[in-house]
């Protein structure tokens, strides 16, 4: 399993100021979301933008090949299900996601998740879990989902490893159907 972070992949040279700002914002994001206390230790910039949304530049919504917008650019999934990983994902799903999503095709607050791994790329699924607000603002598919369901998907402060586990649980669910 490989998860690569976008900010590690691109070099700073040749980037627009907007993109640099986005990087800074994403740096903040990954930093805060990884911490359990919910505090950010990064230096406080006087003229920082008020919110992550405000800084997200137009250029961020480049063609994402259906991978979505967020920290995850590449996910390798095996041919078979990693049962242990899916088990971890099940626990996380029940704690953080099941208040709004069913594993069947039934809509509750958000869409039913049956077949989600067939409809979406694995990167998209993880980015949606990790970066829901930016996704519903910039990713065309996520935008449509927000228009349909009208409730902003909550950011449940899931880290990348956990999002990967939840993805595996979805894959297992879809294989079983």
């Amino acid at each position: 399993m490989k998860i690569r972070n976008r900010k590690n992949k691109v070099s700073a040279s040749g980037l627009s100021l907007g993109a640099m700002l986005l990087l800074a914002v994403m740096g903040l994001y990954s930093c805060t979301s990884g911490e359990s206390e919910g505090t950010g230790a990064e230096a406080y910039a006087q003229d920082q933008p008020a919110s992550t949304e405000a800084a997200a530049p137009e250029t961020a919504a480049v063609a994402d090949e259906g991978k979505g917008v967020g920290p995850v650019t590449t996910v390798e999934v095996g041919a078979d299900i990693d049962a242990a990983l899916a088990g971890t994902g099940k626990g996380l799903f029940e704690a953080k996601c099941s208040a709004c999503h069913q594993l069947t095709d039934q809509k509750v607050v958000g869409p039913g998740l049956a077949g989600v791994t067939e409809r979406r790329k694995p990167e998209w699924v993880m980015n949606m879990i990790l970066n829901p607000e930016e996704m519903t603002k910039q990713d065309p598919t996520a935008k449509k989902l927000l228009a349909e369901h009208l409730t902003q998907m909550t950011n449940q402060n899931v880290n990348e490893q956990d999002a990967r586990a939840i993805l595996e649980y979805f894959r297992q669910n879809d294989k079983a159907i």
Partner: protein
Amino acid sequence: METLYKKVNKAALLLAVAAGAALQSCSGIESSQANTAVASQADADAATKVYVAPGKHDELYSFMSGGFSGQVSVYGIPSGRQLKVIPVFSQNPENGYGYTEESKAMLNTSFGFVPWDDLHHPKLSRTDGMTDGRWLFVNANNTPRVARLDLKTFETAEIMEIPNSAGNHCSPYPTNDNEYVIAGTRFSVPINVEGKYEDVNFSEYKDKFKGSISFVKVDKKTGDMDLDFQVLVPGFDYDLANGGKGPSSDWVFFTTYNTEQASTLKEIGASQNDKDFLAAINWKLAAKYAREGKTHEMPAYYYHNKLDEKTHIATSEIKKKVRILLPEECPGLMYLIPVPKSPHGIDVDPSGEFMIVSGKLASIIPVHSFSNMLKTIEKKDFIGDVGGIPILRYESVLAGEVKEPGLGPLHTEFDGKGNAYTSMFVSSEVVKWKLKDFKVVDRIPVYYSVGHLVIPGGDTKKPYGKYLIAMNKITKDRYLPTGPELAHSAQLIDISGEKMKLLLDFPTIGEPHYAQAIEAGKIAPNSVKFYSLEENSHPQATKKESDTRVERKGNQVHVYMTAIRSHLTPDNIEGVNVGDEVYFHVTNLEQDWDVPHGFAIMGNNNAELLIMPGATQTLKWVPQKAGIVPMYCTDFCSALHQEMQGYIKVSPKGVKTPVAFSTGGKKPAA
């Protein structure tokens, strides 16, 4: 017909002219009519200097006392935007503080549940003589208490009652490394070391009435407070205090009034002596005496309430002893320095050499010298004593006097560039003078009756000398009228140049007394955004929807509920009877910044809950009527916020409706 609006404007003009004239007559400096006219208006560039563009943040946080509101308000500076109101000693219906089962214990005292107080002085915690942005300490003047606010969460973390105090005005003052927070008594009362009740008459004031100075130890890591010891002091009124710095770091100074020890009509009785005292206490020596066991153990009874960070539940502990130091048994502990009568502020300059005492009824401002104080003590240049505490000779300690500063000096702050700024209550102005020669160099009118001043870090070793905030008692015509009760005003003044310039005024809550301001960068990066659900160790937390349930225990019904955009689980509840004690333990399942959920029930004789993401809060409800009762989320959370609601069925007393609950199609077995 002349409107009220026109009238007040005319009155304002007249007042401004009158103030200008008064200024000129009592100022010791050249001050032209033109100068005064300019000073009474806002600086021409004021709007750009206070403008903080949408989405941008202020430079500074300012923490203002809410006075009789019992709260602390937080303002962004220079915009003057109110950012938050933090309840401390008062119940707050906005977020259920003091109403929820978790927070009620914060307001416990030896007098019972006291849901209000008179909050006067906020003081920021310190490291090496500088504010560090960790905690804010505040006092309760009425039912003597000291509170600690956590600046990661902007919540009240701890409240401790102060025994042997009757009016905790002279409080709370942190030492330079936050070793102690020090609190002095306002009203002296009969105190005896045996802790016995005595049927004292007012005529026995001089013999029986005493004051106390409390030394509250602060844990370096957690901030937890502990009353280490008290010094029993002469029965005066202790007004304000301030710690030394640099060479005077080991000392803390207190202004006193009523050295006449009158018990009645103090307005006259406490203004008889030409001089009152500045009490100087060597706190390091006091701590040493206490460690060496020079203390008397005295029975006491006081509450100490703390909020647990992980459970978000406050608990009360009753303490039954206090250690007392008697100055007459501790040589070198305490001295009295004469100051002009009825002093208010005592402010030590950034170098730690000058102690400025503002005598409300004095025509000069005395500046005492710390080095002179030490020499006077060394030479034993005393003019008498009070109960064994030496009185130093005024002239020997004095460094100089600020002549004709204005009327009614109250409080002084410093800009770190060699200037002092003193508020003038009676003549409604701020006066700038030089520490080098005690000469007045500038003055600016304020509207009206200014109390305290604050310069960010103005009481530390290195002030942030760009702004000064004047906190005014009377507003009259400054804002649109709102009936007899008006908001008090704070005025932001630019002190970066030679001349003070008015930038902005903004309304405040309650009666603001002192304030503290601090660079945003010392607080903002550490601000908590949500509580981790994993770390929520509240015993009634429900961390996933599948664990939600309703349980009956005798006449108590416990609802273990969750909230997430945009539903409550369960949202249909039955099996509750009239007269039951129903406890809603609501956990907010969100893990996202700025998504609290509210929870309210129709007709509840209480308040609501406002539950932060990842936290659990409990609302008690005793239904009085049978019927279907709605409940809902009060804090607009999503497009479907209005739909975030549910029903509770209340059956008449005696009807045995079985407990049942559900949300949507999922129906857990009861």
